[in-house]
């Protein structure tokens, strides 16, 4: 092996074991400067995944990644020529590499000797490997960033949930009826609902939990046959806060209905329906209507937890307008929630587009 071959061999070894993007670039830069010592090239390390790995502008030889069809033009400009020039030498790269091949151009009148073309071939492979290592390192860094973000987000959610749970417990105590058994039962129910909703929110991920799924999750947890209730409305994907609050509301209404309302009455009917209303401020209109309850509705003597959720929490957290009525025949609850406050940004965009298209 001559000196150049030796240094390339060392370089390839270095690239193969380069542990980071920086290391790969260092090796490639070193390789390029070795070649520069032969040909007087200088390396312009411009490398992006879809762009080129280029040697430019050297006095005689230019290299580029050949997938970019505009490159002959760019190279010509770098060489100070007005017309695009053709590629003079193309070195195919191995399949494991991100780039298919590297092309070299040289000035008219210049002819590299065999020794130099061999050198260029090795350099092409080295550049390919460097680019590959670079991309892998970037992907790895991106994964690490994603992981950190997920961890921070989970930590935040966990802390918030514990805080929420504690305040729900405190409020439940404050609003409880004297019976300790009843209090424990309500609390267990609420903790269960919060847990179910959180699990569903996590499973849905960034797409957002669908409102229907949220409602059905709560109803299925009662183990009642599905014929006992009707659930209908369009797909509405919820932000986690919106899902969390609505999940609790559905739970409280369900519990109440199981105890006093349509889900307890043999001929009772429950219909939960929603739509996105087309006003200037688009909103989710959700209604819970019980019917067929023959026993006169019991109007609670004082505001309970569920009532507070509907009449205070929803307006506070989501800017909702709500109406809860204990009427003969069953409970009726109407909720109008600005879509902006409860739906995911993507969902909001879809509804805005529909609205704009329909107008």
């Amino acid at each position: 092996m001559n000196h150049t071959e030796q240094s390339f061999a060392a370089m390839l070894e270095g690239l193969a074991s380069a542990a980071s993007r920086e290391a790969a670039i260092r090796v490639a830069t070193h390789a390029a400067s070795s070649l520069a010592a032969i040909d007087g090239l200088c390396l312009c390390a411009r490398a992006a995944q879809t762009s080129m790995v280029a040697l430019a502008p050297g006095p005689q030889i230019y290299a580029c990644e050949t997938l970019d069809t505009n490159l002959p033009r760019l190279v010509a400009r770098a060489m100070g020529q007005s017309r695009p020039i053709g590629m003079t030498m193309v070195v195919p790269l191995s399949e494991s590499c991100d780039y298919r091949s590297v092309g070299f151009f040289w000035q008219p009148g210049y002819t590299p000797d065999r020794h130099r073309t061999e050198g260029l071939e090795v350099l092409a492979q080295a550049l390919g490997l460097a680019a590959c290592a670079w991309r892998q390192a970037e992907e790895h860094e991106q994964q690490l960033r994603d992981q950190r973000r997920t961890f921070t987000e989970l930590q935040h959610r966990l802390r918030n949930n514990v805080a929420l749970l504690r305040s729900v417990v405190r409020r439940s105590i404050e609003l409880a009826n004297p019976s300790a058994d009843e209090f424990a039962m309500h609390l267990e129910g609420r903790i269960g609902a919060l847990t179910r909703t959180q699990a569903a929110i996590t499973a849905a991920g960034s797409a957002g939990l669908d409102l229907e799924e949220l409602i059905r999750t709560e109803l299925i947890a009662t183990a009642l046959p599905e014929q006992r209730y009707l659930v209908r409305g369009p797909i509405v994907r919820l932000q986690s806060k919106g899902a969390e609050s609505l999940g609790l509301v559905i739970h409280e209404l369900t519990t109440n209905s199981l105890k006093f309302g349509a889900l307890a009455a043999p001929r009772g009917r429950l219909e939960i329906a929603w739509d996105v209303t087309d006003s200037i401020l688009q909103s989710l209109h959700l209604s819970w209507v019980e019917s067929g309850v023959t026993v006169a509705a019991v109007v609670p003597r004082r505001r309970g937890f569920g009532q507070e959720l509907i009449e205070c929490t929803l307006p506070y957290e989501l800017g909702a307008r709500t109406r809860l009525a204990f009427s003969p025949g069953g409970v009726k609850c109407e909720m109008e929630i600005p879509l902006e406050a409860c739906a995911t940004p993507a969902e909001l965009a879809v509804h805005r587009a529909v609205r704009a298209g329909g107008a």
Partner: protein
Amino acid sequence: MVGRSVQERALHGLRVLVVEDDYFIAIELCSALRAAGAEVLGPARDLETGLAAIDSEHIDCGVLDVNLRGHLGFQIATGLRARGIPVIFTTGYDASMIPPELADVVRLEKPVDLTALCRAIQQSCSGSRPPRLRAVTTS
């Protein structure tokens, strides 16, 4: 129940702004502060309401949730501090989320210890930094 280890009415005469987007947590904070004798402003549920309160009310201390419905509420903290009003963060995030210029703000992690909150307000308003709380916030 709250503030037993804090002096009764320890926050008497102090006007405390509470910014918190979660209803039940807001109610909990407010009633703890009232029990300790504070006059509670708010609770403000979002950035706009919180910012509006800064200009229209006399405030002795701000108790601020960092994340308000996905928006980071640092603007309110900056606004309060520009007026020389002490600020306390209640947050589920760790210290790395806090911008450097607000790094010295007392930070209480959720779920917030309500006694510690009252103590932090008391100490912020008397001008001295609580060494024990600093130890808690940097852990």
